């Protein structure tokens, strides 16, 4: 866990430095009338970098002082969930909300939660239909139809 602390602190510092570098070409204080668009990103990027490096240093010192960390992360399920989620995002626009959601939910419940296929398909169907009716039909949220594009309104 302390490794995570240290890595996150360094990552935040890197983000701060990157923001500074990216905003450096912009106007910092172009006239006497006040700061330009580069002012805030540069200043905040610098502050974030310094603050995060300070936190990283603090973590480094604690590493050499306290007890070793015992908690370990069980990442099997999160990794599976994110892989399926990535697949969901890839197919979301191509095959549309309805089918992609149904596939995502089924795969998730079977592979991540290790449930039976029949249960997964039942839940998947119910959730997809309810979500579609609520967001698309009732609230008018524009979700991609994908392969249902062009199908007459009364079917879709």
């Amino acid at each position, binding site marked *: *866990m302390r490794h*995570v*602390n240290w*890595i*996150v*602190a360094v990552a*935040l510092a890197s*983000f*701060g430095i990157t*923001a500074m570098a*990216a*905003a450096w070409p*912009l*106007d910092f*204080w172009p*006239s006497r*009338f*006040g*700061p330009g*668009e580069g002012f*805030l*990103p540069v200043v*905040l*990027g610098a*502050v*974030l970098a310094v*603050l995060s490096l*300070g*936190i990283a240093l*603090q973590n480094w010192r604690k590493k050499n002082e306290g007890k070793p960390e015992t908690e370990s*992360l*069980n*990442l099997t*399920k*999160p990794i599976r*969930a*994110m892989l399926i*989620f*990535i697949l969901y*995002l890839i197919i*979301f*626009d191509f095959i549309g*909300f309805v089918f992609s*959601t149904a596939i*995502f939910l089924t795969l*998730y*419940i079977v592979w*991540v*939660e290790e*449930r039976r296929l029949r249960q997964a398909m039942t*839940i998947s169907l119910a*959730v997809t239909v309810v*979500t579609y009716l609520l*967001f698309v039909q009732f*609230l*008018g*949220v*524009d*979700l*991609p139809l994908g392969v249902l594009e062009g199908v007459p309104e009364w079917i879709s």
Partner: protein
Amino acid sequence: MDILSSLGNGFATALTPINLLLCAAGVTSGTLIGMLPGIGPAAAMALLLPFSFGMEPASVLIMMAGIYYGAMYGGSTSSILVNIPGEAASVVTCLDGYQMARKGRAGAALGISAIGSFIAGTFSVIGLMLVAEPLAEFGLRFGPAEYFLLMLLALMTVGLIGGGSMAKSLAMAIFGVLISTVGLDVVTGRERLTFGMFGLVEGIDFIVVVMGLFAISEVLSLLTQRTRQHIPPPTRIMEVLPNREEMRRSVAPIARGTILGFLIGVLPGAGASIASFISYGIEKRYAKNPELFGQGEIEGVAGPEAANNGASGGALVPLLSLGIPGSGSAAVILGAMILSGVRPGPMLFEQQSQIVWALVASMYIGNVLLLILNLPLVPFLASLVRTPIHILLPIILVLSVVGVFGLHNSVFDLWLLLAIGISGYFLSKAGYGPAPTVLGVILGPLLEQNLRQALKISNGSLSIFVGSSISLVLLSLLLFSIGGRWAYNRYQQSFSKQGTP
């Protein structure tokens, strides 16, 4: 007496059967829609506004008031039950409300949210009635320098609410403000921190950040737990609602939150989000055991929820007396008023008093209906927490995708959601709370805008930030909060070194 007789006339208008029905429909639909992630009170009112076409002006406003309160309560409900804030002002409720739900006290959190909202909403309406004009004039004295300092003060208080170290909380707040700078600069139109990606030109919507840091991150966190937490069902119905001890502990936070929320709500643009964050910071400061905040403390729900609803009445003060909406929701109400032929402003109370007082009366009624309709639903809503997690987690992911995609119809936003969610998971594992980042994203644009405006007015001179009594007070509060926290930390460190219990 004049106010009372006007209010009486307002009630006479608002208490007709059709208007009561419209208010009840507004409260119910607002609550249900407000629970949906990404759809806050403003969006809920905008979605339901077309249903009001053809109605009498008073009826339109009565329905809008019902939706307004309902949506705010709905946003808090999803914060407590599934850690997805329905809107910006409900973000803070996630911190302790969701933890209460995980301990089997979802009903208590929902109940206190409803009760606190009712009390704060009622008192804020009284405040609206009595002090609308002088408070609106006070609000006008806030210039860019004062607004900048107020935003900075709100960001500084995250050092108290972020959980973990103050340094980490400040880092997250700065991170949030940096995220808010991504996109086109509103003044010069130049791209900032887009790294050549077209999807970032419009900036990063705060809903994407909220969904990623709260919903996605929480799903990942729950998936890493080796054992799933079992929430035992209550054996008696009264166990679902707040008990006497919880009610007693909530009295002071609700009182403080109400006043704070109303005063902050009066400031145009400040709004309920800031009020709820500052309220949380204050409650943590007043708490006997501040280290327990973030683990399910009732005060962490009661105060912010009261501040949230207190700000709702306050936001209508500048709207009704000056025609300036104090928040996004107030802006939708302004739109509804204009569509109905009602023009808010200094002459509104004189020229169309019947409609104004009908609106004020309907806010009382909306508050009461909120309590009557939603409190009995608390046991049912609390039972949703016991939805099997293998069903709940994928539903949260789907709702996050729909909520984010519905913003701009952008698949790029979905990839951002994923990236922010994974980052948020590791950030939380390292002790960086998500709330300061969200506050930074919300306040960042206002902070920068007011800073640049203030310095333009003063020709680049920093003296503008000490030029008025209001800015001096705000600056003093800022320095006091930083200094006070530093001194407290030193005190705690010296205590722990001495080994004193």
